[in-house]
């Protein structure tokens, strides 16, 4: 009798479990069949009336039924929980193609990036970075660079004078003179000097009354023009690509002797001739030379013991060539649509 009852309870429980449609209903099934006042407990309570032979058999059966129901309930619970989670996840679904919340960042100015790149390259080559005043004494801007007061080359550099003796520096070369003086005649001096310079020009597509310059100076025993060529080759390859070749052409600057212009093989056409290099295969990049003995002497270095090279370049020119920028004023108009294009520069 009891046996049939247990089996029937089991069937009933299974039916309820399978029809329970939620965790709450399932919990009710659990209480109803497995609770302290549930029918199985009732069956077990009535075991006292059974014979000694029947008692363990029914007892075992009751426990089995109980376990079977519990297991079934657990299975159903897991099932329901997963189902619930699935529903929840489904409801949390977003359009992953919607834009995220970005942090807006600013841009580094292209000129700043070029200067930084040149600085980092030369730091790696053992050059320190020196800076100097933008309002400069005539002596440091001209005289100490072998440009005495009446030198005709001063024509080339019409300047913003503040007094007869003070002016907006026309190049970063005066930093050379300051740096040499600081070293009191003892080398090596190995610096690059980036900064703003000023010329009395009207602003147009190719002229700016204010622009950037980077000057380099290396003074030591036995510095040779071939070393200048080597350092400039490293520079050209770094800035314009590993395939670049350089050539030095004689030129004239009052503060160097010999003086040279450095051309690089055209990075657009590789030297075959195109519009960037005006068909020559070469692009003029910077001026350089061996430091003039007068410059060394005036800054306290003995030219019979020391030689050196110096070079000067314009970051605007480098940027304009490299990216085909048509108007130098772009660098100072600071149009964000211009600046943004060079965020990765």
């Amino acid at each position, binding site marked *: 009798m009891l046996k049939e009852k247990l089996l029937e309870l089991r069937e009933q429980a299974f039916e309820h479990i399978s029809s329970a449609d939620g965790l709450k209903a399932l919990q009710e099934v659990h209480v109803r069949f497995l609770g302290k006042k549930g029918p199985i407990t009732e069956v077990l309570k009535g075991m006292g009336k059974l014979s000694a032979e029947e008692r363990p058999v029914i007892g075992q059966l009751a426990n089995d039924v109980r376990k079977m129901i519990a297991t079934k309930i657990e299975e159903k619970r897991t099932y329901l929980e997963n189902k619930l989670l699935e529903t929840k996840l489904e409801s949390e679904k977003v359009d992953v193609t919607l*834009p995220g*919340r970005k*942090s*807006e*960042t*600013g841009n*580094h100015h292209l000129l700043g990036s070029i200067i*930084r790149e040149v600085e980092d390259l*030369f*730091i790696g080559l*053992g*050059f*320190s*970075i020196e800076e100097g005043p*933008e*309002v400069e004494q005539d002596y440091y801007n001209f005289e100490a660079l072998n440009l005495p007061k*009446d*030198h*005709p*080359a001063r024509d080339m550099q019409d300047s*913003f*004078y*503040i007094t007869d003796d003070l002016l*907006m520096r026309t190049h970063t070369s005066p930093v050379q003179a300051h740096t040499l003086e600081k070293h009191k005649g003892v080398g*090596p001096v190995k610096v690059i000097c980036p900064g*703003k310079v*000023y010329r*009395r*020009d*009207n602003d147009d597509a190719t002229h700016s*009354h*204010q622009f950037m310059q980077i000057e380099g100076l290396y003074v*030591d025993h*036995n*510095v*040779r*023009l*071939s*070393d200048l*060529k*080597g*350092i400039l080759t490293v520079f050209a390859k770094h800035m314009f690509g590993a395939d670049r070749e*350089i*050539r*030095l052409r*004689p030129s*004239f600057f009052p503060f160097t*002797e*010999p003086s040279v212009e450095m051309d690089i093989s055209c990075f657009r056409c590789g030297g075959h001739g195109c519009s960037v290099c005006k068909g020559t295969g070469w692009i003029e990049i910077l001026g350089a030379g*061996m430091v*003039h003995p007068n410059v060394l002497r005036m800054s306290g270095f003995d030219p019979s013991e020391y*030689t050196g090279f110096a070079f000067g370049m314009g970051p605007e020119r480098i940027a304009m060539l490299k990216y085909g920028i048509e108007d130098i004023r772009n*660098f*100072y108009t*600071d*149009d*964000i*649509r211009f*600046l*943004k294009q060079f965020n990765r520069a």
Partner: protein
Amino acid sequence: MLVSYKWLKEYVDLSGVTPEQLADKITNAGIEVEHINYPGEGLKGIVIGEVLTCEPHPDSDHLHVCQVNLGSETVQIVCGAPNVAAGQKVPVATNGARIAGNVKIRRSKFRGVESNGMLCALSELGVDKALAPYEDGIYVFDDEVPVGEDALPYLNLDDAILDLDILVNSAHCMNMIGVAYEVSAILDRPVQIKEPVVEETDQETAEKVRITVDAEDKVPYYSARMMTGIKILPSPRWMQLRLIAAGVRPISNVVDISNYVMLEYGQPLHTFDYDKFGSNHVSVRFAGDNEELTTLDGKKRALNAHDLLITNGHKGVALAGVMGGQNTEVSASTESVLLEAAVFDPMTIRKTAARLSLRSDASSRYEKGIDRNRVARAADRAAELLTKFAHARVLKGIVEKGKRTVPEHKITMPWQKINQVLGSDLTCEQITGTLKRLNFSVTGEGEIMHVSVPARRFDVTIPEDLVEEVGRIFGYNHILATLPEGTSSHAALTPYQKMRRRVELLMESIGLSQVYTYSLTTKENASSYAVETRDTAPTQVIWPMSEEHGALRQSIVPQLLNVVQYHLNRQMPNVKFYEIGKVFLPVSGDPRPAEEEHLAGIITGKRTERNWEGESTDVDFFSAKGMVETLFDALAVSDQIDYQPSKREGMHPGQTADILFNGRVIGYVGALHPKVQANHGLNETYVFEIAIESLLRHGEPAIDYHILPRFPSTTRDIALVVKRTVAASDLNRVIKENGSPLLKSVRLFDVYEGDHVADDEKSMAFSLVYFDPERTLTDDEVNAIHEKIVSACAEQFGAELRG
């Protein structure tokens, strides 16, 4: 300097070297050939024709009908030139020819008369009208030319003109002989220059001319030659064509010869009409302060005591080395000529030419320097040509003051120095050989070489100049690239440079874009928005190019306003910028301003752009302030920074704070004054500027490591009701002072004004964190401190705990 390839061939053998190759070689040896001009480019079918007959056109009052012999045939050509006449030999554009401007000449009819070509003026063959002589009609050959042949070679229209960019150190190439020496060295071919031969009469020049020089140091040499019997005529065709090639307009034989010799020898010459000279005394002196001279161009020039003047002993007749005077100008009636060949001080000439804005071919040569040893030879060359082409009779001898020649400059140096400086490996023979190619004489004594430099190369004075000469002629492309072998050195950014880069990165990471603006601004803007206003006037430049760039900025902010305005005008209202750059602060009693590096920022428009989630928010005072606070946190100086309300010109009086670093004002942050915004057409805009140099000078902040806490901290919130006038920073300070040392942090998280708080009061809620690294704090301990804080706030600000 325009160099005719055909003319140059007279001095150096150019066979096998095309104009392009020559230009390349000259450029690579140091003088840039800017371009090559081919004057005959595009011309076709131009031959020499002979006008056999020339009859008036039956239906025209100015046209003529000519029968023209073209060698192989005779054709009829209608010509409108007023100077056409029978017997002339002229350039003819034949049927099918192309003349200048790619114009094709075709058989056509003029008022019913057939014409088979065109008789040409030089300008119709591409010669610049300003240079072409006799432009009142067609060009007429004045000498024997073969009829029927291609006319171009006879007009030097088969030439190539190289345009050389002459820098200060290449003045020796401002004449054809100088270029010839240069090209001879480059090509390693000899140079051939004919010495002039002068036939003199028996009459002594000294009878007609005497010279006195007052300023001998400025006039090292002055010479005069005399010619009589001159006939003013056109100069010969070959000379005219060479002048045209060099960009000089032919005028008459005397003027042309003096220009021609200047182009050939580099020696400026001047010809006076002797009969107008007014005396036989050439007196060279400085002008008086009130003296005047009317120069050849018809302009009256006011002179001063720095101008060298050629006089006849009484009045000026020429501005030395710059331009002649009108009173002694050579004209069609000139019969006697006094020829001046002199040396003047470059600087004196330069100053006069610059002051009078009167740069002439002569002055530019004197300024850059001339061959000291070619002066008398140039005068001889002119005398030779005047004899040939102006019927001149040259008087005997030269009257002169000063030294006619100077010794050659000697440089003594070890020949190996050239290898040492170039990093090359040349033999002694290669080095001396290269110098000899330049026509320098070299002698050697073992390690030492003695180089004698001709006077035409006055730019070569020191051993380094010889290094350059060898380097450029030998070719820098033959020098290997090496890396320096000297002392190895270590380099790094200075602490300041490193920190400045960090500030740049930080500004960009919080959304500001870097800009560069101009240091020079208007006088009015120069001192506005300065962090520190000074009584001294802003630093100004003496000759600004424009008002826009007349004074040095004391603040970056005005320039940033312009940048924002620019963007607003182009529909970009939401922008954020920063700049790090120098400002120039005037110093009382010193014309030199103090230079300080500042950081300035500007923000306007939306803080966050409107997106799909909803509305955007605008930037405000606290956006700007948050940026500077972020900066100070990064620099680890926040503890030393205070903010004080401040009133500044151009700033919102209620939304501007001075920034104090250890009690000293180093900057400000705030809203622009609404009036400024209106004037500039700006939206609400916020700016800051900080004298960042003082913050970065110490380099990287020291790092003070603390072991991680092993005990929990206790957090308590506190809401205080105070008068609205109480500043948050004051309350913050009192809380901190009274919570020390266990109170580790104070954070304001709510400010409330409105219901349940009196009209003149506000509630401020702070979150306080207490912590002891050694143990866990008990509630009683924390309560005690907390109460102390509350009562201090009550005492100092009348603060009440909000219930």
